[in-house]
C-alpha cells in the first residue's frame, strides 16, 4: 500500500514544470502545510450528527458486546454491516468528500499547475458525488483489509487458525479508521504520505485513525492475563480497544483543543 502511494508522489515530482522548479525542490519543506485539517460541514445537520454518530457507534458496540463474546465471528460480521452503514451516513452528512472545495485537503490551497491533467477519480467534472465517493471509499476499505489482516498476523495474531476472526477484526479497523480518510482524501498520494507519516494535522478523520491504532495496540494488553474470562477471547479486546480508541480519537481530534495541531 505505502509503496503504491509513494510511487504516486514520485511521479508528481518527476517532471515539474520550469516555473515550479524552486517550489518542487523545496517541496519537502513546503508541501506539508498544504494539508489542511478537515472541517465538518458547517450546516446544522452535520454539526449535530457529528456527535450523534459516535454515540450510535458506541451504543451499537455496547449492545453487541454480549453477542461478540458469545460468538465473535457472527457478531463481528453483523456489527460490521451496521458500523459500515453508520460510517457511510456519517461521511455523507458530515465530511467533505475528496475533491470538493474544502475536502481533498492537499489540493484545496494549491492552484492547478499549468498543463496539469485533470485528475481522474472521484472528482468528476460536476464536482464530487457524496454517495459515489462513499461507495468507492468503502470498496477501498475492503481492498486494504487483507493488508491489515497481514499486519495483525505480524503483530502476533494466529497465523493459520482464527482466520475469520482476524479478517473481520481487520475489516472493522478498515471501516472505522480508514474509510473516513479515503472519503476525504481519495487516493491522493501526498495526503496519504502525510497521514502515514503522522505529519497530517489532527482532525476527526486523522484523530480517529491515531486513536484506533493506539486503542487496538493497547487492546492486546489484557489477552495474556490468566483471568479466564470469556471476553479475553481473540479478538474481543482488540475490537474493544479499537472502538474506544477510535471514538475517543475522533472526538478529541475534532475538538477545538487539538484540531489542526500536528505531532
Amino acid at each position: 500500500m505505502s509503496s503504491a502511494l509513494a510511487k504516486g508522489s514520485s511521479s508528481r515530482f518527476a517532471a515539474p514544470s520550469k516555473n515550479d522548479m524552486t517550489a518542487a525542490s523545496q517541496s519537502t519543506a513546503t508541501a506539508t502545510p498544504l494539508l489542511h485539517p478537515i472541517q465538518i460541514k458547517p450546516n446544522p445537520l452535520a454539526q449535530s450528527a457529528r456527535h450523534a454518530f459516535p454515540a450510535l457507534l458506541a451504543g451499537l458496540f455496547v449492545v453487541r458486546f454480549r453477542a461478540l463474546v458469545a460468538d465473535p465471528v457472527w457478531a463481528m460480521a453483523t456489527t460490521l454491516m451496521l458500523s459500515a452503514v453508520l460510517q457511510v451516513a456519517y461521511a455523507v452528512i458530515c465530511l467533505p468528500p475528496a475533491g470538493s472545495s474544502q475536502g481533498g485537503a492537499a489540493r484545496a490551497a494549491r492552484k492547478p499547475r499549468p498543463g496539469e491533467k485533470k485528475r481522474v477519480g472521484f472528482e468528476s467534472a460536476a464536482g464530487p458525488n457524496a454517495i459515489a465517493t462513499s461507495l468507492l471509499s468503502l470498496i477501498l476499505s475492503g481492498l486494504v483489509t487483507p493488508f491489515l489482516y497481514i499486519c495483525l498476523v505480524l503483530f502476533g495474531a494466529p497465523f493459520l487458525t482464527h482466520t475469520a476472526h482476524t479478517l473481520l477484526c481487520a475489516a472493522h479497523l478498515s471501516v472505522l479508521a480508514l474509510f473516513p480518510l479515503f472519503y476525504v482524501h481519495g487516493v491522493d498520494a501526498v495526503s496519504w504520505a502525510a497521514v502515514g507519516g503522522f505529519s497530517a494535522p489532527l482532525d476527526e478523520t486523522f484523530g480517529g485513525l491515531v486513536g484506533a491504532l493506539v486503542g487496538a495496540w493497547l487492546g492486546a494488553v489484557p489477552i495474556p492475563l490468566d483471568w479466564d474470562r470469556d471476553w479475553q477471547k481473540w479478538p474481543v479486546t482488540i475490537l474493544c480497544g479499537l472502538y474506544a480508541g477510535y471514538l475517543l480519537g475522533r472526538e478529541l481530534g475534532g475538538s477545538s483543543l487539538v484540531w489542526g495541531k500536528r505531532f
Partner: protein
Amino acid sequence: MPPPQPTPKKAVPAPDYKTVAAQWAAAKRAKEIEDADRKDVDDEKEDRGQVSEREQRRARLEAARKAGYQARWLWTTGFWVWMTCIHLVGIACFTSGFLLTRLVLEDKARCDEPPTGNSSVPHLLPAWPGKGTVDGGCWHPRTFERAVIVVIDALRYDFTVPVEDNAPFHNAFPFMYETAVREPRNAFLRPFIADPPTSTLQRLKGLTTGTLPTFVDLGSSFSGTAIEEDNLLMQLRDAGKRIVHLGDDTWEALFPGYFVGNLSRAYDSFNVWDLHTVDNGVMEHIFPLMSRKDEWTLLVGHCLGVDHAGHRYGPNHPEMTKKLRQMDDFIRRLAATVDDKTLLVVMGDHGMDEKGDHGGESDDEVQAALWMYSPKGIFGRTKPEYVVPPSTAKIRPVNQIDLVPTLALLLGIPIPFNNLGRPIEEAFAGADGTAWENLAAVERMTAAGIKRYQTSYFTVRGIEQSSAPGSPADLWDKAEALISKGGKLDWAAVFSAFASYQEGTLRRCKELWARFDLKNMITGIVIMALGVIVLLLYVASGGDDDVIDDPELDLAERTLELQGVKADAEVAPSDLDKRLVSPALLGALPGFFGGVIHSFVSGEGDWYRGSTLAALTSIATVMVSMPDVRIAAWNILPKTLWGWLALVFTISQSVGFASNSYTIWEDSILLFFMTTFGFITALSALRLPSLADRYLSIYHSVLFVLLGRLASFSKLCREEQMPYCSSTYYASSTSSTSAPWQLVIPFLVCIILPSIIKAYLQQTRSYEGLAPSWIGYVFRTGLFMSALYWLLDSADNGNWIPGLPDKTVKTISVYTAQMVLGLALVAGTTAFIWAPPCVSIVTSALPSQPGKAQVAILGYANAHGARYLLLPLNILGACFLLSKPMGAGALGVMIWQILSLLEILDLNNLSTSPIGPVMLAVLGTFHFFKTGHQAVLSSIQWDSAFIPLFTIRYPYTPIIVALNTLAGQILATSAVPLLVLWKAGPKRKRVLESVSRALGAFVAYFAVESLATMLWAGHLRRHLMLYRVFSPRFMTAAVALLAVDVVVIVVALAGVRVNTMAVGEVFGWAE
C-alpha cells in the same frame, strides 16, 4: 508531504562508487600535497628538511593519538569492570536473602534415647527381644536385616502402572505393578512425591535425611557437598554396618567415606549421552553381591539410564521403551534373588517433564514411583481397595521423606534427628492390614521424633512455638491426651491423631522455611537500582557531543596540526571514564575495609558486608564526581519519539514481570514490541526527504518485522502456556530430538546467509579485504559443518546406519563439532585480529581529465562496520553449532534482523538514539526464547555440553552450556558496537565513547529487567507461582545480565579496540 528534516542527514554515503571516491578525494588531498612535496624534494633542500620535520611531527601525532586511544580504552574498560562488579554484588546480595535457607542442626538421634523417653508412656508396644539395640531394633522391632535400594533416576509414576495408550514410555515396566496386585503381602506400589527442586542431589538429601530441601542448596548441584545432617546412612555407619554403593557418583559426593571401598562402584553421573554405562555397571556388580549378603547391610544401586534417555531423547522415543524394558527385566531378576531377611526398595527420585527434563515442580517432575518387595509377606492394606496400586499419582501418594522413618524402623535403626516424614502405612499394617496398635506405635514414635526436632529448632532460632488451636503443638497435646486416658485404646484414632500432628508440622515447616532475609534483599535491590541510575547518567552525560563528520573541516584541522599551529597532541578530550573509575576505586576502599572490619569485630564474619558497603560507597563517590549530574539527569528523559519508544518497551516489560501471565507469555510480547518498532519505522520512513531512502527504509522495516514473525514459529512452550501453545522446537512435544525436516534448516542457512551478508556489505562496496574469503568460504564452511553435525547427530540417535561399530558416528560428530568451534573461535579470533579493513584501493582514469589517475577506496564509508561485522559472525558460528537445528535457523534470522536494524537506524539517522541498543536487547531476549529456551530451569539444554565433548570437562562444559542458553543475548551484545560502527568511515571521531554509550543503553535494558524481576520476586515472595514463574525469571535475568556484562568487556570492547587499531593503522588515527 513529510516535514523538513530538522537535522540535515549526516554524510551517509549513497551506495555509489563516485560518492565514495569523492569523499576520499578530500581526504586524499592532504596526502597528495605531501607526495608532491616528496617528488620535488630533490629541487630544494630546504624543503626536504621541512618535509622530514613534518613527517616526524605527523608520526609523533599519530603515536600520541594511538597511545591516547589505548589509555582511553583502558579507562573505559575499567568503568565496565566496575559496573560488572556492582551488578555482581547487587545480585549476590539479593540472592543471599532471597534463596531460602534452613538452619542445619547437628544433633544425632541415638538408639538408646527414643524421643518418647520423657513421656509417661514411653512405648505403646510391649517390650521385644533386643529392644534398644540396633540388632533387635532401637525404637521398633527390627523387621529386616538388610535392604537393597535401587534408585531408578527419573522413574515417573505413570511408567510403572498400566495406561491405555501406545506411548513408548507406558506399559514397558509392568513387573512392579503385577507383583503388587498378584502378591499384595510381598509387594506394594505407590506414587512417591518429591519435594521440589527435583534435581538428583536435592532428592538424595531428602531421601536420606527426611528434611525439606531449600532453594539455596540447588546451586551446589554441580559440586556436591557432603551431608552433615543426621541421616540413614550415618546411622547405619555409626552402628558399624557396612554400606555398598553402585552407580551414580552423586552418592560418593554426598557420603564420602561411607561405602565399603572394594565393593562399591561409582560412575560419572552427568554424561547424559551415555545411556548404558551406569546401568550396566550396576547390573554387573549387584548380582554377585546378592549372593554375598552377609557382607553388607545396605546396598544402594542408582541407575541413570532412564533419566539420560529422557534428557537425550525425551520420553516419547523407542530408546525409552528399551530402557524401561531393560529395567523391568533387571528388577524381575533382582527380586528373584531376595530372601526373607532382605527388603528390596525400588524407587524414582523424581519424574520428568514431557520433554524428559526435570528440576522444577510441575506434576510430571515430582511424581515418582515407590515399590517395596520382600518374600517375607509382611505388607498389608488397611482397606481392601488399596491392593491395586493407584491409577494416577494423584491418588494415595506418599511423600519421599516418608521413606526415611519407614526404612529406619524396618531396619531397626533410630529415625534421623531432622526427619519430618511419617511411616508408610503398608509396611506396618501387618499382613492382614489390621495391626492398628503397631501403626499407632510407629506413628507416635515418629511424631515424637519430629516434636523433639521442632523444639530444638525453635530453641536455636529463638522463635516461640504457637499453641493456638489447630497448631502442631495443639494437635500433639490432643494426641497425647488420647493415650494418657488409659484403658482400652482406639488405636486407629491414636494413629490418625499423630498422623495429623505430622501433617500439620510438615505444612508449617514448609511455610517456615520460606523465610527471606529482607535486609539483604533490600540492600541488593538498592545497589542494583543505584547501578541503573549511574548507567543512565553515564549514557545521558555525553549525548550532546554529536560528532560532525566533515571531511573538509577534518582536513583543515589536520593541516594545521601538521604545520604545528595547533598545539601538540592535545588528544585527550574530556574522558568521562577516567573521571569515574578513580573515584569508584577510591570510594570502594573505605567501604570494603570498614565492612570487613565491622563483620570481624561483630563476629559475623560474612563477606557480604564488606562488598555491599564497598559497592554503596563506590557508587556514591561516582555519583558525586559525575560531571554535570543535573544536566545528565535532565537528559535521561527522552526527547524524541524514539527515546520514548525505548523507554516504553523497557518499562512496560519490566512492569509486566509483576504478573505471572506476562512473564509466561514474554516471547509473544517481545514479538509485539518488535513489530511495533518495525511499523513505526516504516511509517516514519514516509517523512524521509529522499525517495530512495524511503523505499529502503520501508523495505528494511518490513523485512525486520517479517523475519521476526518467521522466527516466532520456533517455539518451546512452557507448561503454563498450555493449551494455547504448541512446541515446534523439537520433533514432538514429548521429544528432545529434531524432526528430519528440521535438519534441513541449518543447510538452508548455510546456503542463504553468507549471500545475504554479502549483499549488505556490497551496499557500501565493503565486500573487500578479508570479507569475501572469510564470509564466502570459511564462515560458510563452518555453517555447513554445523549442519552436518546435526545430521550426524540425528543419524546417531535414530541409528540410521546400522552395522557401524558402536560410537563411530558419535566420534565423527564430536570431532566435526570441535573443528567448527576451532574455526569460529580460534581461527576466527586470529583472523579478526590480523584482518585488514574491508576496503580495496582502485585506480582509474578520471573521466574529466583522462590524463590523471583517480584513486578510489572501495568500502571507505563503512570501513569500521564492515570489518567489525566479522566478530559477531564468529560468535554466530559458535552459537549456530551449539543450538539445535531450529535454534540455528532462529539465529540465522537474528543476524539478518540485526543487519536490517542497522540499515533502518542509519536511514532514520538514529545511530545515537537509545532505541537501537534497546531493540537489539529486545531482539537478543526474543531469540533466547526462539532458540528453545524458557525462563524455567528445566529448559536448560544440558545435553548441549556433549556436542563438542565426550565427557564433562571444566571449564569448557559451563561455557558451552552458556553459549547454548544465552546465544541470543551474547550475539546481540557482540553486535552492539555495530550500531555506532556501521557506515562509519575511518575518520569517525570518538568511536569508543559512542560505543561505550550504546553499550550503556544496552546493558541498562538488562539491568532494568534484573532489577524489576528482583523487585517483583521479592515483593511476591509468598506468591503461589514464586518458584514456578518469578524466581526462575529473576535467575534468568540475573544470569543474562552478568553474561552480557562479561561479553561487553571480553568481546565488544576488546573487539572495538582491535578494530579501531586495524583501521587506524591504515587510515591514520581519528580522535
